[in-house]
């Protein structure tokens, strides 16, 4: 992975110092997102993974360094131009009271609309398609307030999908969902990556999910990137112990043959 300025991936950042007010989270961070990858950022709580994602999506302006999108500094694009290339699903989204599902999904068309073109036939086709792809078509006329957590997350995904961006950035898309809905959302992400050719960057909590779904894994600790690469190369017992402080065994996932971690049993020997 190149760490100098010559980086021909669509999305990358170098020499990034990331901070909230005076609180510095990361210093001199370099990362590039391989094109057409499903990149997953993992790490313990408060390691700066969401902060990195926010910087990549220009919601957080780096205190130092620059994020590049398609060869140019991301800050040099007009806001709508970025939004046509890069979609973001943040952790904190607010659905206004009483908004309908189709209405919310259609908000994703904003970067493609203008004052005189507020709802073209193309907008409508794309929204319909996005709802189809995320399986929320039947919910179209419902109010977002009435939906379950899993349904709601799919609606938000549909909204980002309607943005029709080659790059999708997802901040913890599976949080607060039960295991079935988590798998649902991840399968959907894998489908978007595999069948629709999106480049995905997601922050995930669960290392096993990350190892199973990612094509490229970025492991962070204390604001720095500790390791990155294919999950098979990155996920080792040594690394997990180093990063999470948890002794584990790494075994092949019986389903997918990707690495799977199993915590070492630390209880005293039972009879």
């Amino acid at each position, binding site marked *: 992975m190149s760490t100098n300025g010559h980086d021909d991936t669509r999305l990358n950042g170098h020499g990034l110092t990331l901070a*909230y*007010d005076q609180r510095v989270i990361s210093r001199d961070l370099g990362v590039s997102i391989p094109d057409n990858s499903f990149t997953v950022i993992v790490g313990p709580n408060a390691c700066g993974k969401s902060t990195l994602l*926010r910087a990549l*999506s220009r*919601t957080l302006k780096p205190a130092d360094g620059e994020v590049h999108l398609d060869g140019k500094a991301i800050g040099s694009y007009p*806001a*709508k131009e*970025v*939004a*046509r290339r890069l*979609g*973001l*699903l*943040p*952790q904190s*989204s*607010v659905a*206004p*009271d*009483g*908004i*309908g*599902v*189709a*209405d919310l*999904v*259609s*908000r*994703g068309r*904003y*970067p493609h609309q203008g004052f*005189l*073109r*507020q*709802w*073209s*036939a193309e*907008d*409508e*086709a794309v*929204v*319909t*398609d996005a*709802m*189809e*792809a995320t*399986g929320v*078509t039947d919910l*179209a*006329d419902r*109010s977002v*307030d009435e939906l379950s957590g899993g349904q709601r997350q799919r609606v938000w995904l549909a909204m*980002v999908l309607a*943005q029709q961006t080659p790059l999708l*950035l997802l901040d913890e898309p599976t949080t607060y969902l039960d295991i079935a809905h988590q798998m*649902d959302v991840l*399968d*959907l992400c894998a*489908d978007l990556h595999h*069948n629709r050719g999106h480049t995905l960057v997601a922050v995930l909590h669960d290392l096993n999910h990350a190892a199973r779904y990612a094509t490229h894994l970025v492991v962070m600790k204390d604001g720095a990137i500790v390791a990155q690469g294919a999950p098979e190369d990155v996920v080792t017992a040594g690394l997990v112990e180093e990063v999470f402080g948890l002794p584990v065994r790494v075994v092949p996932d019986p389903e997918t043959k990707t690495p799977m971690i199993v915590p070492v049993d630390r209880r005293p020997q039972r009879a």
Partner: protein
Amino acid sequence: MSDTLSKRPGPARSHAPHGTVPVRPLRGRLSFLARPRTLAVVLVLVLVSAFTLALSVSVGDYEVPLSAVPAAIFGYGEHLDVFFVQDTRLPRALTALGVGAALGVAGAVFQSLSRNALGSPDIIGFTSGAATGAVAAILAFGAGRLGVSLGAIAGGLITAAVVYLLAMKNGVQGYRLVLVGIGISAMLSSVRDYLMTRAELTDALGAQIWMIGSLNGRGWAEVAAVWIAFVLLGGVLFAYARRLRFMELGDDTARGLGVNTRSTQIVAFAAASALTGAAIAVAGPIGFVALAAPQLARRLTRSGGTTLVGAAAMGATLLVVADLVALRALAPTQLPVGVVTAVIGGTYLIWLLYTEWRGGRA
């Protein structure tokens, strides 16, 4: 899941958001979503306010028959009819319409920016600051009409700016804006109460009436002032209407969609503040229109978000109706219209909360 995914959308049924109709004139070169329900609501509100306007021009100690009103508005008909309509009643009613529309739009913008029904100028300290500025101008400096208006605008703008700055910390968050506003309002209200106790009774009474908000004796100068402000500043806000709807999704989401959140916040906040200031300068801090009108409009239109047009129509209707009530309820005594908006608006809000919370929704 993977089953539904593998199916590529064939001739699936097309989805415009619920309750909207796509309209694409000029072979799709123009396109937008019409909301029939919103249109209908606005139409009804316009009719109601037009009828109320005609009624308030017609009734009074000197009755102008409704049938004679249209002619009298344009200067035809009996001399006295024309005098009452053109010189006193019409400007007053038009001021009510303009002030109501201005307050409705400004309130909707504030609520949108703070993502909070309580984010209206009444709560975030603007109204309170304007009232304090006016009372100080009257009681401390003995100011006349113009001075009072200037005092009110200055008080309102300064207070709004202070509240906004104090609420800022990693960006402005709605709840913080509201809470800081409540704090500042309470402090200002006690400053006002203090000024009131130190003044002569007649001065204090004058300040009190001004503070409640009144349309008594408003003429064509006020009509011009409020409508010019509404067209200019309201125009800016209507141009920002779409962006404001996206601001309601949260800052990060809005930015992710390509909305320039910082500039939207600043421009919209400044324009809405100036519009509120203009309305207050003309009529005093009339309470509750800015809070209630957008809420009523969004519930009636069921649009799942703020509608500026709806809020403007609702504000105008509310105020013109309230003013008619203020004029006639205890005739010949004229109540300040602020008394009526507070009682009507407050009662309606209580009823609204009562029915809404019955279902256990937060």
